[in-house]
């Protein structure tokens, strides 16, 4: 491996100062002169026909600049990453409470909101379907004319029946997982401007500026080049800003008014209209031999994508791919349904379907271990994937596989080693302590069959610094800092000499999304290629300056040197000066295409993956048996990110992931009944607070270098929030003997489980 100066070291995040000092603007802070404020009229019913929309009274209100409806959408009245089935502004039908019907632009936010109340919409309510299994029945009301089953995945390998028959133990359960909310700091928001030539610029929280550009252009019927998207880092995303949120509304407002416009969703509107994690019902039957070898797994998943598809299709595929855990299982029958309902829309969310199935399969594995009297870590080591193994979908694990490394590091952690001692001292006699462990893998990249590519630019600036462009936006995970480190080591310069550009279609080439644990691997690889091209350009000029042949030029940190005559050197700064003098530019572009698995699953896209990150996590909990309250006292998180470009960054992801997975396991759920959201904001949607944090989260990085990755890196943004949830529920079982098959494991659910254990 190349020697590095920056990669692998704890580098201060490049956005740290701006964030700490508050100079990095939220969208709500960004304003332009003469700007109008937008507000969206949402549906009054979860399912209804629209008979009439009358905007006359709203238009007459003083201070209202424009009121737009479906008639004012010049291009395609639809958006959606996979299929554009969600109307920008509904014409004849609404399918959930978040559906948009009209858009107001006004002199102030208050006037815009007042105008919404003056828009008259005549509805004819339709019967609703709020349960995905019911939605699959022929008798169910149709959310979309095409049928309620949006996607169906079915994979069979081996002989499941035979395996169940010969198995020593079989465990069979049904699991339920909640509709987790991204709960980013700033809800979906943005600001847009338009110039005299009708060029539109949109600043917004987002995760793929070029796809935003495409979706906006499509809805406006406009050349994408006339639309510039700048995804800004403040506010966070977690997958919830992967889909279009406010971009098209902003574009429509500026197009129709020729004035800058701003939209900031309230938390309540975000809760109703925004994306969530897919709630899933998971049936799982798992068989094992007496020695703990997992023989077969039968899985049926029904996933509620709500009123529109967004990424629900790929999410169910991903869930199925990960539904046997990070284990070798030869006989599988896996089936998944992604179903439309009149509930809120579910889409991408950190983990992308792995969270739900990992909760199920990691509980199954613990149950099997219990039945066999086997150690919970041993059973995982025994079945865990190794390089060259065949995974559940029949695909070979060709890339780096660090599962065993993470399990072994977890085994050696203080928490695991001292577990009996730590469990023995609960806070009171009615409090019970337990420890839980779980592991998982996480496909990186978009998977087989989806175009997955990256591009990067590096340009020598007149002052000797380098402008580095990778479009994958910073959404808080620290990828831009990693890009700077990677670029500095490939260019061979100081990180202080890098000017990082990202998230902006105006200044960067399309590198795809900041999702799927993919941006560091993608951007890093594109940067490697770009740096190679940059070095050629530098060498040409350096050779001229040093009067040596180009082939004699070597690049060292900060300068070009003659190989044959090492005293002949010229600094990048000097090269930059001469570049300017001679009216030249020195730059390199790099285009990278993801490698994919050899296995082709006919009829499916997005599965399987080639590259996975791996992780093992441990939780120590204390359960109050009188109330059912669960406290996570300590956690250990052992990720395999490949090379940790910025170890401190990995720790940050790891700690944040643990808490996000803890919220998923214990408290978080967006409750929707009959299409109506009951948990309207953070008063009843229960996020963990600082007091709910474990006292200690230890992160142990277990690097299994990936040869195809930049300096050996894979990705780690998602895996960190996945196995911690079943580690916690497994710890609850270890503490007080109840299996939690439904999360969140709220105090009431744990207490009820405890009670039903007492009285069988």
């Amino acid at each position, binding site marked *: 491996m190349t020697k590095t100066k920056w990669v692998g070291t704890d580098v201060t995040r490049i956005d740290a100062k701006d964030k700490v000092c508050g100079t990095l603007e939220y969208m709500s802070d960004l304003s332009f002169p003469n700007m109008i404020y937008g507000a969206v009229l949402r549906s009054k019913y979860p399912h209804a026909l629209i008979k009439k929309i009358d905007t006359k009274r709203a238009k007459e209100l003083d201070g209202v600049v424009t009121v737009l409806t479906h008639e004012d959408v010049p291009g395609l009245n639809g958006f959606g990453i996979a299929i554009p089935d969600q109307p920008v502004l509904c014409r004849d039908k609404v399918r959930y409470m978040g559906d948009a019907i009209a858009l107001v632009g006004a002199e*102030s936010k*208050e*006037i815009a*909101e*007042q105008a919404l109340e003056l828009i008259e919409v005549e509805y004819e309510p339709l019967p609703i379907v709020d349960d995905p299994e019911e939605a699959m029945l022929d008798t169910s009301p149709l959310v979309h004319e095409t049928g309620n089953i949006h996607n169906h995945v079915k994979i069979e390998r081996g002989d499941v029946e035979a395996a169940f028959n010969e198995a020593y133990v079989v465990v069979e359960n049904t699991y339920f997982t909640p509709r987790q909310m991204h709960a980013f700091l700033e809800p979906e928001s943005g600001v847009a401007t338009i110039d005299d030539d009708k060029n539109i610029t949109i600043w917004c929280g987002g995760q793929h500026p070029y796809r935003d550009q495409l979706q906006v252009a499509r809805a406006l019927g406009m050349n994408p080049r006339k639309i510039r998207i700048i995804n800004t880092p403040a506010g966070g995303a977690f997958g919830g800003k992967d889909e279009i949120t406010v971009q098209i509304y902003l574009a429509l407002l500026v197009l129709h008014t020729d004035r800058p416009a701003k939209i900031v969703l309230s938390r309540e509107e975000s809760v109703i209209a925004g994306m969530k994690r897919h709630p899933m019902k998971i049936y799982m039957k798992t068989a094992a031999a007496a020695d703990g070898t997992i023989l077969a797994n039968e899985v049926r998943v029904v996933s509620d994508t709500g009123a529109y598809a967004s990424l629900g299709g790929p999410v169910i595929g991903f869930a199925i791919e990960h539904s046997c855990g990070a284990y070798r299982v030869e006989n599988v029958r896996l089936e998944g349904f992604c179903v439309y309902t009149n509930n809120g829309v579910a889409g991408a969310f950190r983990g992308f379907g792995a969270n739900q199935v990992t909760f199920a399969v990691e509980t199954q594995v613990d149950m099997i271990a219990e039945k066999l009297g086997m150690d919970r870590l041993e059973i995982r080591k025994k079945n865990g994937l190794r390089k060259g193994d065949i995974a559940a979908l029949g695909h070979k694990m060709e890339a780096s596989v660090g599962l065993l490394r993470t399990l072994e590091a977890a085994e050696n952690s203080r928490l695991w080693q001292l577990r009996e001692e730590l469990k023995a001292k609960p806070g*009171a*006699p*009615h409090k019970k302590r337990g420890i839980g462990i779980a592991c998982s893998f996480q496909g990186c990249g978009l998977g087989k069959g989806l175009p997955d590519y990256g591009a990067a630019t590096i340009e020598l600036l007149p002052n000797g610094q380098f402008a580095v462009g990778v479009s994958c936006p910073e959404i808080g995970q620290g990828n831009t800092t990693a890009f700077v480190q990677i670029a500095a080591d490939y260019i061979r310069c100081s990180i202080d000499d890098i000017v990082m550009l990202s998230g902006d279609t105006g200044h960067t080439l399309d590198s795809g999304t900041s999702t799927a644990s993919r941006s560091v691997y993608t951007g890093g690889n594109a940067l490697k290629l770009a740096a190679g091209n940059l070095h050629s350009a530098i060498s040409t000029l350096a050779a001229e300056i040093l009067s040596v042949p180009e082939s004699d030029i070597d690049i060292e940190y900060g300068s070009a040197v003659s190989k044959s005559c090492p005293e002949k050197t010229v600094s990048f700064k000097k090269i930059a000066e001469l570049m300017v003098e001679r009216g030249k530019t020195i730059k390199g572009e790099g285009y990278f295409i993801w490698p994919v698995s050899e296995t082709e699953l006919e009829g499916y896209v997005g599965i399987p993956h080639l590259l996975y990150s791996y992780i093992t996590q441990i939780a120590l909990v204390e359960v*109050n048996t*009188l*109330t059912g*309250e669960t406290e996570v006292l300590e956690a250990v998180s052992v990720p395999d990110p490949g090379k940790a470009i910025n170890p401190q960054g990995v720790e940050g992801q790891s700690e944040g992931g643990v808490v996000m997975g803890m919220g998923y396991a214990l*408290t978080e759920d967006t*409750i929707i009944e009959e299409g109506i959201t*009951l*948990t309207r904001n*953070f*008063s*009843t949607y*229960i*996020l*963990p*607070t*600082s*007091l*709910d944090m474990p006292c200690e989260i230890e992160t142990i990085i277990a690097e299994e270098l990936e040869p195809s990755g930049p300096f050996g890196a894979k990705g780690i943004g998602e895996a960190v929030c996945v196995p911690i949830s079943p580690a916690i529920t497994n710890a609850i079982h270890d503490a007080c003997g109840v299996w939690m098959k439904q999360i969140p494991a*709220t*105090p*009431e659910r744990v*207490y*009820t489980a405890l009670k039903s254990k007492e009285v069988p």
Partner: protein
Amino acid sequence: MTGINVAIPKSIDETLELLEKWGPDAAIIAGGTDLVVELKDKLKSWKALIDIGCVPEVRGIREADSNHVWIGAMSTHAEIASSTLVRDTAPVLANACAQVGSPQIRNRGTIGGNISTASPAGDTIPALFVLEASVEIIGPKGTRIVPIESFFQGPKKSVLAPCEMVLGVRIPKLDKEYISFFRKLGQRKSLAISIVSVAFVAKCQGPGLFTDVRVAFGAVAPTVIRARTVENAICGKQLDPKTAEYVSKLAFRDCVPITDVRGSKGYREQMACNLLYEGLLSLLSCSEAC
């Protein structure tokens, strides 16, 4: 949007004048932690708000006389939780105030606001119940004193007439022989509205032996309630962990909870019993102290 008038009176007389002038179109705003939520959610609308932050008569925590502590309505939860006087003579209230919301909410939210909102889940209220506090109300016709138990008429309903306001609460001091606890069960450790809360005060006559027992529950009935069945069952009995468990089970008899998004009726009933039991257990394990 039409604006909202905010008046900042400098005295109680001025406040009363404003209340009479505006009538039901105005609301008092203290910390605003309940009221602003209602405004934002458009649950209510007023033409004017009367900010009582600068009214000296509703401020302060002091000894009213040798037997009583007086807490001005405008006292914040943070002030009450850290007051030595309250911690010495009514620790159960200090304890309850310390568990309200978060530091920000405790710095803004007031005891007057907590009482006037009249939520069955208001955290100071069970403590005030077991302290047998009284509410000092002032209105156009002068002041009146209402025992805390008579103040509430239902969820968000109290005996406060439109032009009246809460001046403060009067609390009989507890001497050193009294022990107490306040415990709330929330959905998380802070920023949690009580699923059930319990306040307990009793005179400790020896390990496990309590008299003058007072138990109040929050969030298990339309208003906070005193649980007299359980009080009688504990009073004068020699308790050990077993009997404590037994008597705690009587708590549900005084509870008529509802099911909502935070918890079911059945869970609330059981939690009333169990929180009391848990509290008694901790008292038993440290009642050597009394």
